[in-house]
């Protein structure tokens, strides 16, 4: 079937969003989505059309247990109580500066006005075939902020690395030496990018280095993840 055909894509997307596309056809559709922009666009449009219908539903408050379980699973210490209203608008804004955490260094200003910056560039770093036992996740997803000032990396599943090794992230230009962008403990991290850190680079790569990173400033270990990108 030619999924690039706009009318067919639209019909399938409509049934997917409405929920009538089921079973194997639904799963096939979901597998096709990432690679077919026409399907993806049609699906987004249909979701945008149909989802507001759910606004008529009467909200149902989940039990407090749900948030506790989510909180545990996302690996944080449980964030403060979530009794309704505790996170009121005012409290949120009052707390904003307090919560501008390490992860958000340099980005608070940027995010206060997200519409004025281009969307982030997402790079998928696939595990390389030659990756040794250190590479235990299928991929790491890196998101470069629209202004190129920072990068956030996160593995699809947690990466375990031997205690005497570190994962180091590199920007690899098409010609010239790779530039270190920093360490990624457990495959995740937020990296503030120096000006032009990505200039001329078309690949992000993660190498397995001695603990603390490459002693020479150049990659010394095997490349365990790599992904192409363009800004």
């Amino acid at each position: 079937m030619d999924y690039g055909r706009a009318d067919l894509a639209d019909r399938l997307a409509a049934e997917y969003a409405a929920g009538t596309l089921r079973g194997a056809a639904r799963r096939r559709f979901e597998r096709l989505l990432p690679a077919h922009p026409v399907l993806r666009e049609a699906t987004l449009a249909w979701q945008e059309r149909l989802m507001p219908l759910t606004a008529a539903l009467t909200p149902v408050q989940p039990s407090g247990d749900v948030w506790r379980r989510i909180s545990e699973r996302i690996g944080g210490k449980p964030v403060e109580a979530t009794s309704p209203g505790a996170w009121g608008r005012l409290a949120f804004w009052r707390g904003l500066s307090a919560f501008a955490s390490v992860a958000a260094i340099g980005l608070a200003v940027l995010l206060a006005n997200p519409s004025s910056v281009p969307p982030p560039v997402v790079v998928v770093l696939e595990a390389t075939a030659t990756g040794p036992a250190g590479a235990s996740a299928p991929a790491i997803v890196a998101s470069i902020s629209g202004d190129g000032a920072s990068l956030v990396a996160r593995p699809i599943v947690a990466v375990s690395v031997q205690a005497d090794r570190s994962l180091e992230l590199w920007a690899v230009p098409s010609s010239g030496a790779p530039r270190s962008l920093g360490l990624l403990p457990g495959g995740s991290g937020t990296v503030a990018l120096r000006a032009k850190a990505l200039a001329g680079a078309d690949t992000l790569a993660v190498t397995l280095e001695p603990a603390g990173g490459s002693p020479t400033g150049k990659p010394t270990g095997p490349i365990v993840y790599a992904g192409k990108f363009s800004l």
Partner: protein
Amino acid sequence: MVKPAADWTERSLDLSRLVSRAGLGDRAAFATLYERTSSHLLAVVLRINRDQAQAEDILQEVYVNVWRAAQTFDAAQSQPLTWLTSIARNRAIDSLRRKQTQPQMQSPRAASGGAETEDEDVYDTVADAAPGPLDLLSRASDARALSQCMDKLSALQRQSVALAFFHGLSHAEVAEQLRQPLGTVKSWVRRALMTLKGCLQAAVTLDGVGGKSQGSG
């Protein structure tokens, strides 16, 4: 407590920031996002999978997914509430496949004590006191000034869409509920959706909601 659909976009603007911050690992923002959206998403899931415990499990999966995928969220492409609701619906529909849990609908067959009239809208009524899918559809469409186009659909077309959308019924299940041939139901749903599309595009233009231009396709 019913939120008119008109403020879908308004609520979304507010949520965009929270999703972006969550994408950067900000747990407080994520907690706020949960606080503001979880009761809506649970209502969405419960419509499709009516088992409260399962629905809360699904909700948990949804938010763990949202946390992991938050940084891939692109506010330029979709509204956060749409994005979140889609994830919740997809999870809920998947759960039907896995657990074979069907929404507990009043069966037309069980309901018929003998005198069953054609006009009787037994299909509209779910087993509990919650508004039926058609009520919901008309509430939502009122809010979006869609009632005119919904009126153009036949009653059965409307029911088909409402059953499929709000209860996550498949074509076959809708056909069974309405006791109509599968092919007929399929074409009702398809035509109803296309009519809806035309109407919503007109409504979007009027509201100035749409950031994207749609092809006339």
